[in-house]
């Protein structure tokens, strides 16, 4: 089975092709085909996963064909399957299948649902390519593929102006990141002469510290763009304009974790440079706090979850930035997050489904009585994310916090406490969301008749809820030891004594979570005002995304515009002049030379004869001279 890795992405690719080509003809069976394709890939992935366990070393590679086989530039369509890839494949196809199933119910009344499933399968294909490739060009191929699918799906309801705008925003912000990524690939070509993972990591040691730093920063820029990390986080919450299953699959569980994947995959690059690690850790910490703070002030149920995603991925960045054993921790957290965040997004979708697409949490309340299953499953997600033992979030987040305390110098205190503060805030805003939605008094708009969603929607919820509960036990299985060999040089990392004992960190983590949750329950247990009230500086700032959009505008957009204007000026005056001149020259020459083609057969014969004489003369000249 392991020799047929291509099957994993070929199946959803085939399904996507069929769906996109058949259009309305497939209204009946199309969605189910869309569900079955990733499900088959999941089963295949599972089989491969178990086969991989018996291999030693646990990695298999195959080059399907040569992409660019010219000269020194050897890029092949190569696949690789190792524990890191396996984890991602299972997450993508497993959670993906459940979300596909849910979408059958959610999109049941949409006329373009076949197209939707076509795009959805396209996304799965691209995401699998992304994690299965054995070189950076393959990664980039999948990278652009998921970007395209994400763009198509965010603006799926393109008639809504907000959806179209959000699609564009996502596209442009991703471009910024992608530019970094592609520059990184060029850099590898130029300095290392290869883009293959194995060879890059072998040769990366030969780079100077500065080149390495630049390479790492470019990769990080790409990762930040895709994963919605500071300063490229703004597109992710806006991406919630897409259908809810899209938010769950692409903008919570899988695509946005691609950045984490890149850093984890490129660990030899990042581990080799402490400055780089510090930058990654800082980015993660800033983002996680930013996401928490803004999350506290938002009223749109999906946006709160989106900011929460931003902040959780911040934790993962923190983890991969810490290096060493924390790589595996970040990946496990990513896995658990995939479960509980998809669960909560789909729960939110279920709530919206029952409440006529209402998204304002100030307009919910007391839904626990009407939507029992959604309530229970959402509760599992909520408890998991805030880190209450024995649910998954506790087991996966707490070790990252602990690891942050183990950096061995004063930064331990900084990052450790920031991570703890994040846990407190997470508990606060998630509890606010949960309480305002499911408990307290009804604050519905008129004419609402909330009801539970159909089984096709709640069955995936149940599975995801189970996943949210048990994913934490992965920490106690061999998966961690299993992932570690992927991250080369893990053993060589110096072990620092944590600045605080482990048990204390655990206790503090749980205490903070309970404190935050209790606080939120106390404030919002009895409901809240129907409209946002005027508030202090901090809350207003948080409501305005901490002015990060304004920041982006000042720091990136305005100078960008100036630069563009300047370039346009130079282009119009200088470059175009040269180009137009050359074009006129070619055009004029062409116009005159055309006249030589007189249409007379005899003049053609003359040109042939003259040509022949010239050839003969030239040959003789070469011979004699």
């Amino acid at each position, binding site marked *: 089975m392991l020799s047929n890795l291509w099957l994993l992405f070929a199946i959803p690719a085939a399904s996507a092709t069929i769906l996109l080509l058949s259009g309305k003809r497939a209204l009946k069976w199309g969605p189910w085909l869309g569900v079955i394709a990733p499900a088959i890939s999941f089963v295949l992935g599972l089989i491969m996963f178990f086969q991989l366990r018996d291999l030693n070393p646990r990695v298999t590679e195959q080059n399907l064909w040569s992409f660019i086989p010219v000269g020194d530039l050897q890029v092949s369509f190569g696949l690789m399957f190792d524990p890191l890839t396996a984890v991602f494949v299972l997450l993508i196809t497993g959670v993906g299948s459940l979300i596909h199933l849910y979408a059958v119910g959610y999109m049941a009344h949409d006329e373009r649902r076949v197209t939707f499933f076509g795009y959805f399968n396209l996304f799965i294909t691209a995401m699998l390519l992304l994690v299965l490739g054995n070189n950076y060009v393959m990664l980039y191929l999948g990278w652009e593929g998921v970007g395209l699918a994400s763009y198509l799906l965010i603006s799926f309801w393109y008639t809504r102006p907000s959806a179209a705008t959000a699609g564009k925003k996502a596209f442009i912000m991703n471009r910024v990141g992608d530019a970094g990524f592609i520059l990184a690939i060029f850099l590898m070509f130029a300095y290392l002469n290869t883009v293959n993972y194995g060879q890059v990591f072998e040769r990366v040691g030969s780079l100077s510290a500065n080149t390495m730093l630049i390479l790492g920063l470019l990769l990080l820029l790409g990762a930040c763009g895709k994963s919605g990390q500071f300063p490229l986080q703004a597109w992710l919450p806006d991406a919630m304009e897409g259908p809810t299953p899209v938010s769950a699959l692409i903008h919570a569980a899988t695509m946005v974790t691609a950045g984490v994947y890149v850093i984890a995959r490129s660990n030899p690059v990042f581990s080799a440079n402490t400055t780089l690690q510090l930058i990654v850790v800082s980015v993660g910490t800033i983002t996680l706090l930013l996401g928490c703070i803004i999350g506290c002030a938002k009223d749109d149920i999906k946006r709160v979850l989106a900011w929460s995603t931003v902040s959780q991925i911040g934790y993962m960045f923190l983890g991969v930035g810490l290096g060493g054993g924390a790589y595996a921790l970040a990946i496990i957290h990513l896995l658990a997050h995939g479960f509980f965040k998809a669960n909560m997004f789909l729960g939110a979708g279920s709530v919206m489904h029952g409440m006529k697409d209402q998204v304002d949490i100030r307009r919910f309340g007391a839904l626990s009585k009407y939507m029992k299953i959604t309530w229970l499953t959402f509760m599992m997600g909520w408890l998991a994310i805030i880190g209450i033992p024995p649910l998954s979030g506790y087991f996966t987040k707490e070790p990252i916090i602990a690891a942050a305390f183990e950096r061995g110098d004063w930064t331990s205190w900084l990052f450790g406490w920031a991570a703890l503060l994040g846990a407190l805030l997470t508990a606060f805003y998630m509890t606010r969301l949960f309480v305002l939605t499911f408990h307290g008094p009804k604050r519905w708009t008129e004419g609402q008749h909330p009801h539970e969603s159909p089984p096709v929607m709640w069955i995936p919820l149940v599975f995801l809820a189970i996943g949210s509960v048990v994913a934490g036990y992965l920490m106690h299985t061999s998966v961690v030891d299993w992932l570690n060999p992927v991250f080369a040089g893990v053993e060589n990392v110096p072990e620092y004594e944590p600045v605080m004992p482990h048990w204390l960190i655990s206790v503090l983590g749980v205490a903070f979570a309970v404190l935050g949750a209790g606080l939120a329950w106390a404030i919002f247990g009895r409901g809240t005002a129907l409209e946002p009230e005027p508030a202090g500086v901090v809350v207003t700032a948080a409501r305005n995304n901490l002015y990060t959009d304004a920041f982006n505008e000042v720091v990136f957009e305005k100078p960008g515009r100036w630069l563009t204007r300047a370039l346009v000026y130079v282009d119009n005056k200088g470059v175009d002049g040269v180009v137009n001149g050359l074009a006129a020259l070619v055009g004029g020459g062409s116009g005159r030379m*055309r*006249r030589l*083609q*007189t*249409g*007379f*057969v*005899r003049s053609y*014969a*003359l040109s042939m*004869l003259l040509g022949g004489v010239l050839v003969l003369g030239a040959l003789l000249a070469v011979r004699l001279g």
Partner: protein
Amino acid sequence: MTPMWYIVLSAILFSVGAVGVLIRRNAIVLFMCIELMLNAANLALVTFSRINGTLDGQIMAFFVMVVAAAEVVIGLAIIMLIFRTRRSASVDDANLLKY
């Protein structure tokens, strides 16, 4: 008399043909000039056959004659077609395709 003169003769005939194609207008005459070039080649082949003392060249001349005959068939068909439409065998009249 050395056989080399025959080569010179064949070169002259070939040149006459090659130039004839350039200066004559009538398609039939043009075509005859091309035939002249082929026959000049035949003469050269036969002469070289004599000089080299092998028979190959003479056999080749037969091949060329057959090919030339086939060419005549095709060529006359095309020229007839043009002549019937245009009522003229001048190649300069066929001048719609240009530039």
